[in-house]
């Protein structure tokens, strides 16, 4: 019977030692696109109640489009975008990249009154310095860690979306129905 712990260990070791050319970028891209779809489906669900007709006019409208972006490691590929129409103004959500410094991807949300980054991250904590202790060729686990470290793919799948103001990059606000609609109000004129 295969030792699951040993298999996980080997998988992680391979990933840690994988040179850039061996990283499965297609898998990374697919996971990133899945997370965008998941967020956009949530947004559509959150906005659906306001799409109904009130007094003959819908309170808002939204359309999804597609846009081609280019990343050096992933090449050119299509991403979905959303444009949310509120009165005469539009707020757009456009995926920027999955390869970013300190996160697993970023969507830029832009309206008439400004923009905010929507970042995919596995933590809302400020960055910390971590040390790994090597004993021979074995990395000693952190005394506080009980489970094996997740792979990057697992980390991305378990990550959440956070609003991050471009000029206050330590501030991370979890994207929820409430925070999303609050953000929309802040991005258009009253």
């Amino acid at each position, binding site marked *: 019977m295969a030792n699951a712990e040993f298999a996980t260990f080997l998988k992680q070791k391979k990933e840690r030692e994988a040179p850039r050319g061996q990283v499965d970028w297609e898998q990374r891209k697919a996971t990133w696109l899945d997370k965008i779809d998941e967020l956009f489906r949530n947004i559509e669900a959150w906005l659906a109640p306001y799409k109904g007709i009130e007094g003959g006019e819908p309170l808002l409208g939204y359309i999804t489009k597609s846009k081609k972006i280019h990343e050096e490691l992933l090449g050119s590929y299509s991403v979905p975008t959303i444009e949310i129409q509120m009165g005469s103004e539009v707020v757009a959500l456009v995926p920027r990249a999955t390869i970013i*410094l*300190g996160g697993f991807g970023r969507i830029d949300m832009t309206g008439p009154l400004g923009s905010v980054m929507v970042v995919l991250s596995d933590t809302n904590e400020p*960055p910390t*310095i971590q040390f790994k202790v090597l004993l021979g060729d074995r990395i000693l686990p952190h005394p506080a860690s009980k489970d094996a470290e997740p792979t990057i793919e697992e980390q991305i799948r378990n990550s959440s979306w956070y609003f991050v103001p471009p000029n206050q990059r330590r501030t991370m606000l979890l994207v929820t129905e409430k925070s999303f609609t609050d953000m929309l109000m802040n991005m258009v004129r009253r």
Partner: protein
Amino acid sequence: MSLSISVSNHVQDINLIDDYYRQSRHCLESRRNLILGELGINDLENALASFNLESVRFASPDEIRNFYDKLIDELENLVKLDFLSSAEGHIRYDFATRINNSNQHPITSTFSRLLAASRYGAGGVEFKKILDAWVQHHPGNTDMEGKISTYKAVLDLRHWLAHGRWWNLSSGLPTHTVEDIHQISNDVLKAMGLYP
């Protein structure tokens, strides 16, 4: 008996400024390349924390490149100012020590008159007048005249850099490279015999 002009020993060596520029630029470029090389692999948060890069947290590779381009631009502006003001320092130091030592070259008399006419001591003597005195006292030295003229032409850039760049330079945005400014500063000091 006239008072001696107080001088410091902090006038900077032009060659040290050049070393400083090259080392600093190399460090910035290395750091940029290191970060770009690590992107997408693992331990991104660690890299970020180690480099204290709060202003580019969550930035894409292009944005990181732009950030480092701006840092290098800023380094270059500061180094240009350092070259130009250091050259001025050498020239003013010479002005002061000639007067202090009652140097016998005729230029010293001109310097003393400039000092006497200044309401604010040696620091108040207009720099361009010191440069003009050098040309005036070395007639026929077209090499020195040319080097001083070239140096004077970039003093607008020096003032612009030193005073916050809030106005538009009449010549437009500066086109001189760091190497140009190093050369101009070096040349004027060499032509005056003040090369450190």
